[in-house]
């Protein structure tokens, strides 16, 4: 249990830092989505399924999708 939480937390921190350094906007969006999804798993491990559901549907799916569309609108030139 603790091992899973620490591993997942470490991956989340690493991914969150990686968002700052990737060149590609698409990669940054996907990594942000991964952080959200990991957060949702973390909530589930901490016995908060309601929050996990909300995080997975809003943070990991809808927000990622809106970011992707925003990227499509502004184009690749940042």
């Amino acid at each position, binding site marked *: 249990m603790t091992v899973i939480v620490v591993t997942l937390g470490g991956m989340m921190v690493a991914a969150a830092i990686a968002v700052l350094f990737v060149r590609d906007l698409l990669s940054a969006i996907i990594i942000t989505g991964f952080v959200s999804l990991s957060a949702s798993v973390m909530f589930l491990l901490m016995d908060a399924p309601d929050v996990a*559901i*909300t995080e997975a*549907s809003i943070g990991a799916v*809808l927000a990622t*999708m809106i970011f992707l569309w925003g990227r499509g*609108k502004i184009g690749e030139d940042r």
Partner: protein
Amino acid sequence: MIRTLTGLIIVLILGAVAAAVVPEMQMREELQGVGYSYASRGMDDTGSSNLVTAVIVAYRGLDTLGEVVVLFCASTAVVLILTLYPIGMKASEPSRVVAFTAKVLPAPILLFGVYFIAHSHISPGGGFPGGTVIASVFLLVMLGSSSVPDGKGRLSAIESLAGLSFGLLGFWGIMTVGQFLNNAFLGTGTPGTLVSGGLIPLISIAIGAKVASEFSGVFKAFRNTGGTV
């Protein structure tokens, strides 16, 4: 480069704050105060075996009403801006994988969303997540077709009706027992059964319909080049 450094510094500051605060946090063995009251009396008071929903919809129903209003304002602003300044992203032809997925998956996902809303007082879930799941079905269907669907104002109609019915359910309490958003005047039923929890299932349906139509409207506005939501 400066932007990256600024972000990194912000992350480090936040990390330092978290590192300072987290060790001070203590896990209490027992609930105290309001939390204890909710946990011990919640099921008897509301007839809802999911205490999270009981707190969100029954005990703190007024806050949820305010939250719904905030969400309404935010989505209205987004849709307004995107309608006034349509950027006109062309919907491209979906690939075969996406088109196939958009044909197969919507029905089970829709069922899942409806289950979240209908069972919000029994199992984890509720109006907000259920509504977003239903909105993601709308999103999937839209991704699978190259044309933007014409809502003919129906999304706005559903949104308004759902918001109105939340308010009216509150006023029902005033008319019967003299308390706004009273949960228990219909009887609370047996906890764990589908027809239980007083007004919680009805309010969940209203919230779910509202959230689903709002997010669908936002998605549609993102793809739209003009016209009604």
